[in-house]
């Protein structure tokens, strides 16, 4: 129990070296477009992300990868990885997901599928790698989904802090307020047989953000 709890903390800590600190998940683009300017705006956006992307896509992919890794189903992980990658329409999101996922796998050494990635047979997307690493660390499927969910929210809130949209107390308030949504998002991921997402407005803004000359975040 303690091992699992500590493993969840480790995997969802911003200290974990996977490069996620450079992502704003569209928040920079939305802030520039004038769509987000207050803590309430951010909280509403994150609630929507958790329901329409993090739960059904990231948590679901991490949980399925976790299950496949537990069963030694390498083909299943490879298939899931390819499907997840194909579902991301924003180029910089795809590239960052692969970069972070691959680095995460490297960090959790001796992971069984690492050779697959080295040989280019798998992309190593972030949530898929996350699920595989959590399985290796003895973290449950639910714990895995919770870590994905929390990591997403904490990353977005951190980006909003650096962009000056919110202040430090507001950041903690948002995280606190979203706890039920994070839990729901994780449960959605655990109970899902499919990986899907629906956030076209955010994706269109992120596509435009890719081509901006001056920006703080990858996307």
């Amino acid at each position, binding site marked *: 129990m303690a091992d699992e709890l500590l493993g969840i903390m480790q995997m969802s800590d911003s200290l974990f070296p996977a490069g996620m600190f450079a992502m704003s998940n569209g928040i920079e683009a939305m802030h520039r477009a004038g769509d987000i300017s207050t803590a309430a705006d951010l909280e509403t956006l994150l609630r929507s992300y958790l329901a329409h992307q993090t739960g059904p896509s990231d948590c679901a992919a991490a949980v399925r990868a976790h299950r496949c890794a537990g069963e030694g189903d390498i083909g299943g992980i490879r298939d899931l990885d390819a499907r997840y990658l194909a579902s991301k329409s924003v180029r910089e999101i795809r590239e960052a997901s692969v*970069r972070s996922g691959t680095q995460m796998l490297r960090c959790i050494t001796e992971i069984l599928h690492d050779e697959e990635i080295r040989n280019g047979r798998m992309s190593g997307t972030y949530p898929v790698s996350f699920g595989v690493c959590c399985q290796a660390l003895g973290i449950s499927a639910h714990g895995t989904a919770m870590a994905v969910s929390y990591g997403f929210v904490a990353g977005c809130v951190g980006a909003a802090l650096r962009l000056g949209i919110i202040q430090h107390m507001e950041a903690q308030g948002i995280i606190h307020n979203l706890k039920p949504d994070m839990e729901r998002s994780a449960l959605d991921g655990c109970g899902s047989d499919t990986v899907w997402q629906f956030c076209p407005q955010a994706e269109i803004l992120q596509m435009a953000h890719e081509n901006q000359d001056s920006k703080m975040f990858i996307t």
Partner: protein
Amino acid sequence: MRRVPRVGIGGPVGSGKSMLIERLVPVLVRKGYAAGVISNDVISKEDADRIRATLSADCTVPGDLVVGLATGGCPHTAVREDPSMNLAAIEQMVRDHPELDIIIIESGGDNITTTFSPVLADYFMYMIDVAGGDKYPRKGGLGIQSCDLLVINKIDLAEHVGADLDVMRRDAVRSRGEKPFLFTDCRSNTGVDEVARHIIRDLLFDAPPGAGGP
């Protein structure tokens, strides 16, 4: 995959890191070394775009050998606590260009405690400029104290901003002991050859170009 020797260049915004790279790389290329550049930027890829334009104008370096990374407002994190983005970029660069002899990684930001992770950079240069005030070497900080080579740039401006180079020289010795420092004026190429000599001697151990082999 073999490890291509890497130089990390840190220092405050505006100290001349990009200019140094633009002047340093042609010196290395003229000596036969194949070089790549990764530029971590706080707010944009402007530095990388400028370096790429400068170095590819005379075919010194192919365009894909200058890569810009957006670092989410945390350039120091990207080269120290979590260098994963840079490591991935280096890996891709070496995969595409196995002929490389050296990779230069630039990271800006007004933080005198900036250092590079040894996993990322084998040789660390910290750059300041006289216009920031002659107090800088005295203030110390991890970057100034621990770097392999301290570069004090824009010495041509010293008389205009009231900076005393003798004070900077004295304080650099005080805070760094026997570790080297150089005065440069990159715009006029003053001291750039000496920077290249330090890198070739202390990082490449005087190995000839291509010694690492693809």
